[in-house]
């Protein structure tokens, strides 16, 4: 038995030998959740058209991706294709010469300037990654629970809290599934989900960059006050509830509302046995313009040191094609194509999310930080090595959450203002801890002081 098995193994190795002589492309990615979709759907479709190119999808754990990728790139052992985080993380890789300039790709014409903005140099001269998808924030709810309790989908904040009160009074369901243990949940699914309605999306974000608004302004603090009100509607012991706990609470039907990012859709579709719906973050009064976070999230670029540049470009052209956009958006509902060609999607939940683009104003995530030592390096050189050009300003008025989502202004030192060499001021604060699918958008914390 063992002998037969061994023979088969040996034979298959021998047979695989000649295949390896063709070009093999390796993709670095943090989307380990999508491994099977890449292996079973996307890669076979590409290989069918390009029989001489083999593609291997090699993901790393999301939290370790940036660090691992940087080590691999420095050591020269990274794959040919690099999945790009938006803004600074990838811009830094491009500046270090690890990512190739892809401005010349024909497929780049398929993307709007907004879609490409997350993967361009500041002056827009070079684009170094092919945009793949964006994610939209909102709330996913248990339709069966809403029907049973006779709750209509809330559109205003008052209706939203009335619905939460009703679910709580009934007691069958936990009103909302969110925990504060992992910290980034409250920052991404909380603050950046409901926030755009307060700071008026792009208007507020661009005002921050221009310096006419500050993070301590009422519009930027108000979402914390709303988050603090959520506290009463979360499950018992939400302080120790992790991200997977929240997902499970919702998909097991124990919670009624889940503050979500659209990337949850495919996972929830396979796990949940009840009907689901989605609604955008409720506005203050009926008829107000609604704003949604529609964040440019994922793109793919080429390792500048790749020996298979020609094959990699063939692959990237294909990624930029409408064909890939349709396949990707349908294989991974919730990752919405950035391609200018309209994409037909089958998933009703994904259709619901994407329909908000028509009635609400889109913006990208404007605040995400992490209190650690790494960002200074991501800003371009540590202070020690840049000869003290930067300046650290300790600030008492840093806005922070106290881990329960509430504001706690007097708590120091939970955040820092940091002025970089170019005179831009950045905030490093503890409530906003990024992980996939979070990142550090460029310039967004810039608050001239």
């Amino acid at each position, binding site marked *: 038995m063992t002998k037969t098995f061994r023979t088969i193994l040996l034979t298959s190795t021998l047979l695989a030998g000649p295949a390896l002589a063709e070009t093999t492309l390796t993709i670095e990615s943090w989307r380990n959740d999508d491994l099977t979709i890449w292996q079973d759907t996307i890669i076979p479709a590409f290989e069918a058209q390009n029989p001489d190119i083999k593609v291997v999808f090699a993901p790393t754990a999301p*939290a*370790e991706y*940036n*660090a691992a990728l*940087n*080590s691999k790139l420095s050591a020269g052992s990274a794959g040919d294709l690099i999945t790009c985080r938006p803004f600074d*993380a990838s811009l830094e890789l491009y500046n270090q010469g690890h990512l190739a300039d892809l401005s010349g790709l024909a497929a780049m014409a398929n993307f709007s300037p907004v879609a490409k903005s997350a993967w361009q140099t500041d002056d827009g001269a070079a684009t170094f990654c092919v945009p793949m998808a964006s994610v939209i924030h909102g709330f996913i709810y248990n339709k069966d629970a809403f029907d049973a309790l006779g709750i209509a989908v809330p559109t205003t904040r008052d209706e939203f809290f009335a619905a939460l009160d009703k679910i709580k009074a009934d007691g069958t369901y936990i009103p909302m599934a969110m*925990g*504060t*243990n*992992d*910290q980034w949940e409250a920052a991404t699914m909380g603050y950046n989900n409901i926030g755009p309605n307060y700071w008026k999306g792009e208007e507020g974000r661009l005002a921050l960059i221009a310096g006419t608004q500050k993070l301590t302004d009422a519009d930027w603090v108000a979402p914390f006050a709303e988050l603090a009100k959520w506290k009463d509607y979360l*499950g*018992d*012991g*939400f*302080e*120790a*509830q992790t991200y997977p*706990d929240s997902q499970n*609470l919702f998909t097991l039907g124990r919670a009624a509302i889940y503050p979500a990012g659209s990337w949850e859709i495919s996972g929830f579709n396979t796990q949940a046995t009840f009907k689901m719906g989605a609604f955008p973050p409720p506005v203050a009064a009926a008829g107000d313009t609604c704003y949604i976070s529609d964040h440019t999230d994922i793109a793919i670029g080429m390792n500048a040191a790749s020996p298979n540049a020609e094959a990699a470009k063939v692959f990237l052209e294909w990624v930029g094609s409408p064909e890939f956009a349709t396949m990707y958006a349908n294989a991974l509902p919730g990752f919405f194509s950035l391609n200018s060609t309209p994409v037909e999607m089958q998933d009703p939940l994904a259709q619901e999310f994407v329909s908000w683009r028509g009635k609400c104003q889109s913006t990208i995530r404007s605040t995400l930080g*992490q*209190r*650690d*030592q*790494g*960002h*200074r*390096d*991501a800003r371009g050189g*540590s*202070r*020690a*090595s840049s000869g003290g050009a930067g300046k*650290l300003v*300790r600030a008492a008025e840093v806005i922070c959450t106290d*881990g329960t989502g509430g504001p706690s202004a007097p708590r120091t*030192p*939970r955040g*820092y203002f*940091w002025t970089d060499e170019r005179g831009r001021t950045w905030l*490093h604060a*503890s409530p906003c*801890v*990024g*992980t996939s699918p979070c*990142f*550090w958008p460029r310039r967004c914390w810039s608050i001239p002081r």
Partner: protein
Amino acid sequence: MRWHIAVFLAPAVLVYSALMIIPLFGTLLQSLMNKGEDGARVFVGLQNFATLFGDALWSDAFWNALGNNAWFFVIHMLVQNPIGIALAAILSTPRLRMAAFYRTAIFIPTILSFVIVGFVWKLILSPIWGIAPGMLDAVGLKALFAPWLGKEEYALTTLALISVWQFIGIPMMLIYAALLSIPDEVLEAAEMDGITGWSQFWKIKLPLILPAIGIISILTFVGNFNAFDLIYVAQGALAGPDFSTDILGTFLYRTFFGFQLQLGDPYMGSAIAGAMFGIILLGVCVYLFAIQTRLRRYQF
């Protein structure tokens, strides 16, 4: 010629040097380096340490980790070692039945993998799936339950107690062995003089096992200041909530290898490792020169 000594020592010396001495000095050397303007490695002297202790971006995290680490150690010294000694004293009483069973049962957590320990306790204490809220509810004490691992004020103490639960077997075994090695004649002589029971433990046995207690303390100290695994498994590399369980080991890990958006920095990482080495060296020296030399030893 004593050449055979060198020959017999060689394998151990070579392996130890290759795996311990050279990496240790390599790390210490690296802590004096940093990236220069062009990205190349340059010698910067003690600048990394100046940054670590003086730059608020680093020093706050460092002192926070050191303080947490000290509290972690205090809990072990106050809870693990006294209970370990008490368990050993109880086990060594001749009238105790099933002593071997208790000894084994108490020692078992020590041989479990920290991954299992961290995961099991996380599950037990989980407010959603755990059995702790249900068990407290069954005895009417549900009000006492809190999401301990998620509260800044309790998380570190909870983890320290989990670690105590895991490693209590080690002080127990060492003290148990020390207690067994006390000759019966000494104890008989004590009994002849009318010293029995608890006063026999305090006046005869405890002074005789003091050297063992000293060894346990220093092992606990070194173990705690090198700790990393349990915190990493239970709370992740960010040592949440809000760094309240961050100890030197997790701080070193995040700095050296990077985590999430933070990129790895081998130079500052080495500086932290160097600081940890210094702290542990200092602690061990204090013990060796200030305490151990004053411990009275008895020869039987």
